[in-house]
């Protein structure tokens, strides 16, 4: 039964989890919205008051902010993101960074989900640490700078500045 409903969903509407930390990562994530047209999107970030950036009724979750330097926060963040992925069952996870986005991609991959990493445009001379670590958990691994693209990834398909 469960298999059937999952199959139906992939044939119908894909469920996307779009997740990023607050500040610039979040602003960049929101600029990708046209890519999610026709999908069911759930958003997650680290700041509660960002819900006002979304259209009314958009599904919005808050996860604790974390980084690799504060282990306790990292554990708390990991558990919260893991719970979000288990309960929401997204088909695809998209992130622009940083640590919370990386964790979401990592867990999503463990559950066999499709994952997309777009490294922040801020990282103009080398990929972010999270971005470098995301490589092995990513189905689509992208930089926003052409000069950082390599044959074996990351790929470059333009940036969030617009046309």
């Amino acid at each position, binding site marked *: 039964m469960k298999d059937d409903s999952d199959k139906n969903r992939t044939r119908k509407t*894909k469920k996307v989890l779009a997740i990023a930390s607050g500040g610039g990562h979040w602003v960049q994530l929101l*600029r990708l*919205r*046209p890519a999610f047209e026709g999908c069911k999107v759930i958003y997650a970030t680290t700041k509660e008051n960002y819900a*006002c950036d979304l259209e009314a009724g958009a599904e919005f979750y808050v996860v604790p902010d974390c980084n690799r330097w504060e282990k306790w926060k990292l554990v708390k963040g990991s558990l919260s993101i893991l719970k979000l992925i288990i309960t929401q069952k997204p088909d695809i996870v998209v992130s622009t960074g940083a640590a919370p986005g990386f964790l979401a991609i990592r867990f999503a991959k463990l559950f066999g989900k499709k994952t997309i990493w*777009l490294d*922040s*445009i801020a990282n103009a001379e080398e990929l972010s640490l999270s971005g470098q670590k995301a490589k092995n958990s990513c189905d689509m691994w992208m930089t926003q700078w052409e000069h950082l693209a390599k044959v074996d990834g990351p790929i470059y398909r333009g940036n969030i500045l617009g046309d």
Partner: protein
Amino acid sequence: MPDSNKQKIFVTVGTDLPFDRLVKAVDHWAEQHPQYDVLAQIGDSLFVPSNMLFQKFVEPDEYKRIFSQSALIVSHAGMGTILTSLQFQKPLLVVPRKASLGEHRNEHQLATAKHLKSLNKVEVAEDEHELIKKLSTFSELKIKDPIGPFACKRLTDSISKFIRER
């Protein structure tokens, strides 16, 4: 009290890390330029400004209102502020944080500033001294070409196609 006839300048260090070097420099400048209303979002900066209004954190709605009323934005080289300035069509002066001074975890803000400057998306003051110089002639700063609300179509189309693929 803010004087509604004065030109407004908004200073922001983002939401995460302190940036005392920037806050201190603008506060010093503000003391000598009382003809401007300067408001700062100082985050966890330790320096306490005495010549400008300041808040630790400005809520998103209020942030947008302040942005739209300001004649100039001064900030760290964070993408949130840079993108918002381009979208609101506001002149922006950025001072990159330096990891060598303990202002960030790595030197990516120097890279962001350098490369976005080469795309003519941002005006950069390399340090607080250059900032003071550029502040005094800020009315000559040109507004950068506007950006739309979304990423380039090639990027969103690639992601969209990838999402739809089995």
